[in-house]
């Protein structure tokens, strides 16, 4: 997904003079040729994340469309107040594009993990959050983001599904159970683990790469009595949205995702998926227990 982002972004910078890219050293080598061609619109501020966001806010105030890129923990966690004030409070928007989702950087340890990024962005109003599950879903999202002014958080990952499920962000039914069957909503790269985990069970499995704004109309149309969220970031991040959407009917909700604790372990993303119960076996165990 990172390579796809670099290629697509390089093309957008060439085609659309309104676009700009702000970096804090991360991926600067990958954008070196774009920086040579567009020295005024590819801006690497060095290892300065507060400035990266402040510059994005300033560029947007002059009418440009800034894309801001770094590791999730550096683009969201580190300079959160700049996102809140230099973008939102100024009434301008930007596209934040992260890599290093959740435990993609497992071997680098906790300092390079941010499972809480989407929850942090979700404390703000009016943001779109995109969590693609396949590299082919990335280019159309980037192109659409270049054409609007509102703020977007695009979360890229090394975890990916076998095939792409492009679309406009509404829930797509991947497997349909009987009417009123429990509904599983898998976000981004959690779709394949969910499909593997739930093979042979009578469930409806729906996919989205755009958890904000959440497709609440689709959720209401598909949901029976049991709803299961499978998210690749902090568990419970979308519980609030489901609660608001289904508040007028009885339902039970299971929210699966990355746990809150610092495991203090390295290893691989697969190891962390297992430790957080997000591999096929872990998902099946949690969901079977929930459904009884």
């Amino acid at each position, binding site marked *: 997904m990172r390579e796809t982002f670099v290629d697509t972004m390089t093309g957008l910078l060439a085609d659309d003079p309104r676009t*700009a890219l702000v970096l804090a050293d991360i991926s600067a080598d990958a954008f070196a040729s774009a920086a040579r061609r567009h020295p*005024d*619109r590819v*801006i690497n*501020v*060095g290892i*300065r994340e*507060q*400035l990266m*966001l*402040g*510059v*994005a*806010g*300033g*560029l*947007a*105030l*002059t*009418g*440009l469309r*800034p894309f801001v890129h770094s590791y999730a923990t550096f683009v969201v966690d580190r300079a959160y*107040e*700049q996102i809140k*004030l*230099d973008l939102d*409070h*100024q*009434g301008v928007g930007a596209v934040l594009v992260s890599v290093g989702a959740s435990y993609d950087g497992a071997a680098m340890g906790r300092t390079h993990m941010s499972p809480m990024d989407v929850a942090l962005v979700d404390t703000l109003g009016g943001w779109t959050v995109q969590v693609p599950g396949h590299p082919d879903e990335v280019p159309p999202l980037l192109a659409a983001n270049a054409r609007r002014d509102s703020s977007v958080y695009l979360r890229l990952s090394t975890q990916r599904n076998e095939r792409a499920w492009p679309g406009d962000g509404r829930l797509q039914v991947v497997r349909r159970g009987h009417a009123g069957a429990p509904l599983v909503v898998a976000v981004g790269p959690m779709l394949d683990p969910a499909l593997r985990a739930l093979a042979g069970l009578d469930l409806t499995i729906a996919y989205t790469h755009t958890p904000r704004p959440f497709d609440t109309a689709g959720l209401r149309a598909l949901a029976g009595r049991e709803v299961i969220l499978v998210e690749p970031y902090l568990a419970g991040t979308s519980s609030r949205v489901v609660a608001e959407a289904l508040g007028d009917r009885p339902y039970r909700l299971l929210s699966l995702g990355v746990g809150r604790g610092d495991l203090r372990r390295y290893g691989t993303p697969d190891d962390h998926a297992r430790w957080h119960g997000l591999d096929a076996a872990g998902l099946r165990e949690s969901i079977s227990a929930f459904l009884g």
Partner: protein
Amino acid sequence: MTVTTAGRVDVGFADRPPTTDFARLPTLLRRLTGDEKHQPSSYSTLDVLWVLYDRVLRVAPDRLDAVDRDRFLLSKGHGPAAYYAVLAAKGFVPESWLDDLAGPDSRLGHHPDRMLVPGVEIGSGSLGHGLGLGVGIALGLRAQGLAGPGTPHGYREPRVYVLLGDAELDEGSNHEAICYSGACRLAGLTAIVIDNQSATHSWAPASPNTGYTAAVPTYGLDSAPAESVGIATRFLVNGWTAAIVNGRDHDAIEAGLTRSDSRRPHVVVARVEGKQHA
């Protein structure tokens, strides 16, 4: 008054023509504070703001969104009474707004909001945000050919001015912006630091001989105060030009502000009396 689609307020009014009379400000400040005792000297930023709006900035209430306007960013959003008084004096906001500071329906609060006040370029209050935004605005103007060597007027037009306080410089975000804009030679950016010696840990150099004292021109001062030199040094080492001025002397302020060159960012340290601690 109408609210535009972007949410900003357009104000069409002319309850009083813009004034060039500095002596009118105490009346406006009294309307904001209801305070008869405070003199203009109580407002550390008042003279600098006046000189900017009266002599330097190319801004006007009838061209708020002109792409070639200068940008003034009040980074130090605390105690904006002087800012509001000057905006009213220059016709950006109706004087009647001054009578309800921070009321439930007031557009003027204890920290300014660009979405509520015509002519205010950024919302501020949390310290250390203005300079980074100013760097982005200067880069954005340059990227669009509105400022820089490619324009007929060179770097002079439009310019981005950011007003900070000496205590605000404690925030590390400022130092990210100071280092970067010096390194990339961001001409077109002017920082103004009001030095009222309010930083908890003084900016005076630990060693009196920084090597920079003689390099900083001063205006309206007999000698360069240690704190002001310490502040200017933080910019100079990153490739900025600098001037230290008497922050109460209008001609000195103007001289310092207009001393920028076309190759580097510029800082003006405006020295005023030490902050009165209650």
